[in-house]
């Protein structure tokens, strides 16, 4: 790791460096291009893997759900929940490609829907963890995704466990029609109850997070964190250009843009993320605090 903020500083926060370091060990491999799209340097997968897939130039490569769980959950602490909920082709969607086929292939590739949820500890602190998987139909919000998110939000509220979201999504899942859209309401009802119960909620928005996900739970956390350079917005730039014929400034919808626009609290490099989250969870769950 190449932390801009190192162990000595974590310690000053009251965060034990060893507990931060004790992540799920090495991250699983990620499919990588041969060169960095930002700086063009030739990539050495093993070296990059040691740096949480962050290039020396600062480019953050997209990680899939397994890598995020390995990074965020302490080794052996991840207990996945409701993994056996299965998507269903209600609309019997046929063209251009049958939805059932899409689902079967993703399953064959070992993917289990666009959102996976479970309990874990992060630096020894109990959390509910929800992770989007962009590999599964572009991390699109589906009924299964919505159900897993809602059940986990309800559980976090019931057990007063801090909730941690890792977002990456292209939007709602077309092939599930109106019921995919309705997940936004189902989820946000549960987010509201999480807040009413006074449970801390932290969201990490990664590249890309668009459409129904930032328009439902992803920006409603107590602390919204974005990864450097992540593209975050409601409507994608291509559609905006098409419909308004406007030129979009460089950096439009980037994490840094959303920071300027007041939508996110922090832009945190992946190499610091565990320490930052550990610190925030400690701050927001400190016992013997003043009365609410």
């Amino acid at each position, binding site marked *: 790791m190449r932390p801009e903020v190192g162990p000595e500083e974590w310690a000053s926060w009251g965060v034990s460096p060893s507990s931060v370091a004790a992540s799920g060990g090495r991250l699983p491999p990620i499919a990588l291009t041969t060169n960095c799209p930002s700086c063009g340097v030739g990539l050495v997968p093993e070296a990059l893997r040691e740096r949480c897939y962050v290039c020396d130039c600062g480019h953050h490569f997209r990680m899939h759900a397994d890598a995020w769980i390995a990074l965020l959950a302490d080794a052996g602490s991840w207990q996945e*929940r409701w993994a*056996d*909920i*299965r998507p*269903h082709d*209600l*609309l*019997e*969607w*046929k063209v251009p490609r049958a939805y059932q086929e899409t689902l079967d292939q993703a399953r064959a590739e070992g993917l289990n829907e666009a959102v996976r949820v479970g*309990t*874990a*500890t992060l630096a020894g602190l*109990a959390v509910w963890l929800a992770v989007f998987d962009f590999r599964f139909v572009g991390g699109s919000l589906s*009924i299964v995704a919505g159900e897993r998110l809602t059940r986990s939000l*309800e*559980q976090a509220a*019931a*057990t007063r466990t801090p909730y941690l979201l890792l977002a990456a999504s292209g*939007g*709602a*899942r*077309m*092939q*599930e*029609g*109106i*019921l*995919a*859209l*309705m*997940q*936004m*309401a*189902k989820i946000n*009802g*549960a987010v*509201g109850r999480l807040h009413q119960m006074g449970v801390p909620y932290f969201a990490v928005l990664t590249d890309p997070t668009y*459409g129904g996900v*930032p*328009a439902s*739970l*992803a*920006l*409603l956390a107590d602390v919204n964190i974005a990864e450097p350079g992540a593209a*975050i*917005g*409601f*409507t994608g730039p291509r*559609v*905006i250009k098409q*419909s*308004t014929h*406007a030129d979009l400034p460089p950096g*439009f*919808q980037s994490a840094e843009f959303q920071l300027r*626009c*007041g*939508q996110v609290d922090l832009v945190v490099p992946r190499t610091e993320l565990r320490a930052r989250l550990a610190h925030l969870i400690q701050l927001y769950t400190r*016992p013997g605090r003043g009365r609410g």
Partner: protein
Amino acid sequence: MPKRPRDTLSVWQVVELARHPERPYALDYIRRMAPDFVELHGDRVSHDDPALVAGPGSWRGLTVMFFGQQKGRNLAERVARNWAMMHPEGYRKAMRLARQAAKFGFPIVSLVDTPGAFPGAGAEERGIALAIGQAIMGWFEIPVPVVAAVIGEGGSGGALGMAVADRVLMLENSIYSVASPEAAASIVWRDSARKVEAAAQLQVTSRDLQAMGVVEEVVPEPEGGAHRDHEAAACALEAALWRHLEPLLRLPASELLQHRYERFRYIDSLVQAAPDFGPKVEPRGAAGNPAER
């Protein structure tokens, strides 16, 4: 799995009726229901959104807070109303006045008619995603009855942001969908010209949504469509809205909010009932261990 009933119109014909330029718009209904409707303005931050009309009016002896996504009848109006595509300020105005309705105990009627939230740079700069998300979450905390009706186009999150209600109705020839047929086509086919097939697969008609358990009632339109007889369409909608609102007026706030939560919590029960869906919700606390502090 229930099929769509055989409609006499093709799905695309319904889409065209839902978008018919002579179709009654929100204010055509609101002004008939409440001739003394007062349009209030402003998000109290930095803008007013003409795409959403909002304000109190007298209806059946009650003061009701009305909301309506408003299209324009001619080009000038369409430009002024931005084709009923809301900016963030519209959802903020809605939440401000929904909370005001709660303060005074006014029931709420929301008429939905939008292609979607505005896909523009300004909307993004002012936080359209969060504004919609806050609205969707906010509606669950408004302790007065809320009845919504889709009167034309119910386009995506831009529509849902004004349709988190205790009852959601649809006019017979209106549509409600996860994305406009054009958008869905360009996402799935990368070709918006496939909108007709997209609309069919998306199942966007009022009957489709009723079959899926997403709306409580389909309100019949005059022969040939609402544009043929605004007065008759308004009478039918007014009666249906009251039929659904009236019983809600008797519910205590806590029950109202609990019902609203459950309405959306289990709105996909058709799918959850499917044998291959998987286990139902478990008793709470089952996953409690990590949390015991």
